[in-house]
């Protein structure tokens, strides 16, 4: 049976929070996948300095450092959006202000990411010898 037009190329139109819902999932999955690896690489410290330095030297790679910046962004977004979810869940009347509260959440996230990107970006550029 041929695909109906309604089945393809249309955007899911759920609640207004669909994008933050998606971002919450994506950042959450990214964080737990990183955590699986991170518990192991941190545990290597129990095998002495040589083993630990060998593992932590992956952070000398600029691409890993970009991922590190992404991780900080993911944790921050997930935390702020989670806080927003809790506000709506425990004080349902605030759902009336969903738009401004969502805008404030995004705003705080973006504002916080400006200095963080500046600091971590400078460290990456120094690593590459461009700064």
């Amino acid at each position, binding site marked *: 049976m041929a695909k109906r037009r309604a089945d393809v190329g249309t955007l899911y139109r759920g609640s207004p929070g669909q994008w933050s819902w998606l971002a919450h999932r994506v950042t959450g999955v990214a964080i737990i996948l990183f*955590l699986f690896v991170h518990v192991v690489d941190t545990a290597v410290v129990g095998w002495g300095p040589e083993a630990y330095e060998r593992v932590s030297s992956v952070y000398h790679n600029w691409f890993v450092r970009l991922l590190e910046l992404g991780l900080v962004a993911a944790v*921050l977004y997930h935390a702020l959006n989670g806080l927003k979810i809790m506000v709506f869940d425990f004080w349902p009347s605030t759902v009336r202000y969903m738009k401004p509260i969502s805008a404030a959440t995004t705003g705080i996230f973006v504002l916080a990411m400006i200095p963080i990107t500046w600091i*971590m970006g400078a460290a990456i550029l120094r690593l590459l010898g461009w700064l």
Partner: protein
Amino acid sequence: MAVGTHERTTEHRPESAPPRISRERPAGGFELWAWLFMRISGLVLLFLAVGHVLIMHVVDEGIDRVDFAFVATRWGSPFWRTWDWAMLTLALIHGINGLRVIVQDYVRPTGVRFAVNMFFLTLGFILFVLGTVVVFTFDPSRWPGAA
């Protein structure tokens, strides 16, 4: 069915129903406790995990200053060992329950769903044991001169 009459069920949302951005609160039982746990642990992790990434990855040279000696000094304090262990425990449970909720949405066959959930649960348990052992037994004096 005629083309055009097909509508997404989400579009039949009654006008009176408030828009939702989060998972609906479960009626009771395990799911209600899981729902509540996600929120309480999330609030605690807001401080533990955000604090952790800011301390370890952003301020004061970030990851560049983290080496064996740094960890040895840091874990010299029971405060940071407790912090890291609490974060490990809460983040693993929070993350694995999050994966369970997502798996519920995307993995339909019950056998496969069970297998995927058991895989993450087992992995999480192994990592919890590994992390707990290392956090509480780490003794830098075994490598004199390194710290």
